Each structure stands twice: as structure tokens, then as C-alpha cells.
């Protein structure tokens, strides 16, 4: 299907074990397609996602990072996603402030029942990253030469 020279973004998706990872499983068992560019890392809760992980991904060449968790109010651990929400809001705002295209990061709340939402979200996100192109700026932030 895809052309050889087509831009294939590297996209990391952090998914919480209880809702969004299960949502991704449901997308799978419902055969809802989304691009292979997305690779999922399972974490127990969105509050396990350290901003350092996200920056690390960018540093190692990721073009987009998305974090999915349970809907606010539905966190398996009651409150984890509320902390995650604040952390990610501030991190994303900082990245935007540094001039990084703000579409490269995203948070989406996906429940275990939302296989369709998972797949739609991933399709949208991949489209967005494709439209942004390769991630040059983040890798470039402190290159002296």
C-alpha cells in the first residue's frame, strides 16, 4: 500500500493498563485499523507516565507521543489521571512555549469500551504527525553545532 519514500512517523503511545490498553485491545479484536506507526507501551496508570519518558522518546527520534488514560473520574486508582492531566497540561504548554509544534503531543481519555475511539484517535494522531512531518526541532534543541 504505502510508498517506500513515504514519511513513516515513529509514534509512541502510553496506555494505562485498565482503560486505554484494554480499549486498544478492543480496537484490535474489533479489527479497527490504524497505522502501524503507533507502538503502545503499557503502564499501570496514566500517572505513571513521567514527562522524562516523553522527552526521552522525542530525543530518541519519536515524531509524536500520545498518552491515553481512563476518563477523568473513572481512574482505576481513583485519582491517577487527575495528576497526569496536570502534569501533561504543563508539559505540553512548556513544549509549545519552546516552539515545538504542539500537535506532537496529545492526551486522550479512552475507556475499555471505546475501541472505536481508540482507533479514531490513533488515525487522527498519525494524520496530524504526518502533516507535521519529521520531528526536527525537539532533537535540535540544544545542538551546539
Amino acid at each position, binding site marked *: 500500500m504505502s510508498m517506500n519514500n513515504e514519511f513513516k512517523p515513529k509514534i509512541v503511545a502510553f496506555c494505562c493498563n485498565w482503560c486505554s490498553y484494554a480499549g486498544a485491545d478492543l480496537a484490535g479484536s474489533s479489527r479497527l485499523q490504524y497505522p502501524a506507526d503507533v507502538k503502545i507501551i503499557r503502564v499501570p496508570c496514566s500517572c505513571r507516565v513521567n*514527562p*522524562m519518558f516523553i*522527552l*526521552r522518546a522525542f*530525543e*530518541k527520534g519519536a515524531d509524536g507521543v500520545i498518552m491515553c488514560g481512563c476518563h*477523568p*473520574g473513572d481512574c482505576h486508582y481513583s*485519582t491517577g489521571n*487527575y*495528576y497526569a*492531566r*496536570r*502534569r*501533561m*497540561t*504543563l*508539559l*505540553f*504548554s*512548556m513544549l*509549545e*512555549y*519552546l*516552539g*515545538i*509544534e*504542539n*500537535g506532537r*503531543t*496529545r*492526551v486522550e481519555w479512552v475507556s475499555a469500551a471505546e475501541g472505536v475511539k481508540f482507533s479514531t484517535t490513533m488515525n487522527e494522531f498519525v494524520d496530524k504527525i504526518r502533516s507535521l512531518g519529521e520531528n526536527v*526541532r525537539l*532533537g*535540535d*534543541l*540544544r*545542538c*551546539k553545532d
Partner: protein
Amino acid sequence: MQRLIDRAKELLASGEVARVLGWKKGDLGFNPEPSYFETAESLDNDFVYDGFCGANLSKYMIEASKKDGKTLVFLKPCDTYSFNQLIKEHRVDREKAYIIGVGCKGKLDIEAIKAMGVKGILEVSGADINSDCETLTVKTLYGDKEVSYNDAMLERCHVCKGKEHQICDEVMLDSRDTKDAERFAEIEKIEAMSPMEKFEFFKKELSKCIRCNACRNVCPACSCRKCVFDSNKFDEATKANVDSFEEKMFHIIRAFHVAGRCTDCGECSRVCPQGIPLHLFNRKFIKDIDTFYGEFQAGEDSETKGPLTAFTFDDVEPSIVTERG
């Protein structure tokens, strides 16, 4: 200043305190540095408190808290926020501190004077805390020059949080209101830039960094026993590698680690040998926290939960960042 020395000697003599934490004269007239004083003589000989005593002594109280007996510490109004924050984090022992809140008429930045084109500086007078602090006389190799005190102040003094001590046992000396700029004006200016302009701006600034860690060492919020950048908790500890993740992201992560805890004391920018305006990172977080979660000033007290360890059910979604364009 003499009053401070007298009072310190008195407290030392009475045994109320075992040592004094203050500023000692440097080799030049404008580079005092933090120091312990354990005798009346050393106080008489070396103690100084003037416009160049910008250093925030709060962080030194972490070590002082481990020593026997109380330590007398001089804290400027803005330093007391850091002290409170350190109490909140159980890093200093209030019982081990005798705090004299000292007045402040704005602290000076020798780099600001140099930036005015003043070369060959030998001495600066007019920075005495007892003077009116309006004009400085700079003695140089090329003769005397007069500069306005305000023009020579540190950036942080222009956006001063106020001259009230948040915590202390007694207050000495008068202060002078120095706030003449909006705290977030610089941030707003950057926010208004195009993404490419922002990127170029920060790239230029961050490229100056030599990873000397001066910012980290001076920061009262960076008080970890061992910094994550020096431990192997996230990665192999390979500090030398300039290409590593930490090297690139050091400042973002550092700012994130102190977000909600940074009192905006401005020490990072003051000590940066490369003149990187590091406070722009921390203050951006402060501004965002104020906007998204309500105004919060770290160190205003020693109990309130920080904004990153709290939440409300209807906090803004991260998409607010993308939506605002």
C-alpha cells in the same frame, strides 16, 4: 550593617545560636559570598550585607539543620519563601534556625552594570543597605561613573514579590519597594512569538549552556540528595556524554521538577555564568499554574499542597494547549 553584626555577636555570645550564616566580603567589592561565622572576630572582619548580597541563604540551611545547635540565618524577604518551601518538604528544621529577616532595597547585578558599557570596574559605592539606594558610583580604571541603582538591579528585583518576610524571628533594617515591571511580561512576550521565533530564541539561549550545574547547585528547590541526572535511576549514569537525553532536556526537566515548588527566587539566572535567562522556564510554569489552577505562590506558607500534588475534578484538559492555537 553594623547593627546586624552587633545582633549576631549578641546571639552568639548568649549561646542562643551556635553559628551565623551570612555573607562574607569577596575579593572584589561586589562579589560577596555565603559563609558561616562562628566567632565575633570573623563577623567583624568579614561579614557584609549590601546591594550585592543577592545570594539566597535558605538552601544552606539544609546542611545547617544537621549541625548541632541553632544557626542564625539572615533571610531577605524573597529568601523566606524558599525557606518555607524547604520546611514544607522537610528539608530544613525550623527549630534549628534563628531567622533574622533583613530589609532589602533591591539586589544588584554586576553584569547589568557591565552591560551599560562600564569597563574596568574596581569598586562600586552607594550599594550600602543604609544608603538611599538611588545612585551608584562606579569606580573604574577609567574614572568614576554614576549609574542609577535601579538600572543595575537583578531582573528579579524589578518584579519583586514584596518586601514582607514570610517567616522569621525578628526583622531588621528597612526595605525599599523595587517592583517596576510586570512579572509575566517577559513570558507573554515569548508566548506571542511565532513557533519558529520561540524555537530560535530558546535554541540560542540553551546553546550557551555548558552544563556547569551552577543553576542546580544554587537552586533551593533543587535540593535532592542526588539529582536524577546523576543517578542511574532512569539511565546508565553517563554524565560526560553531551549527546545524552539529560544534556538536551536538562533544563526542561529541571524546570518540571521544581514546578509548583519554585518560588521564583531568580537565583538560577543570577548565577548562570553564560547569562541564560533560566527563570523564563520556571516562571512559565508559574504563569501556567496560575492560569490553569488558580494563583499559587510557592513558599507563601509551609503547609499548602503544591499544584502538582493536587487537582480538581474539572481541571482544564491538556488539549487547552493545542486549542489556544
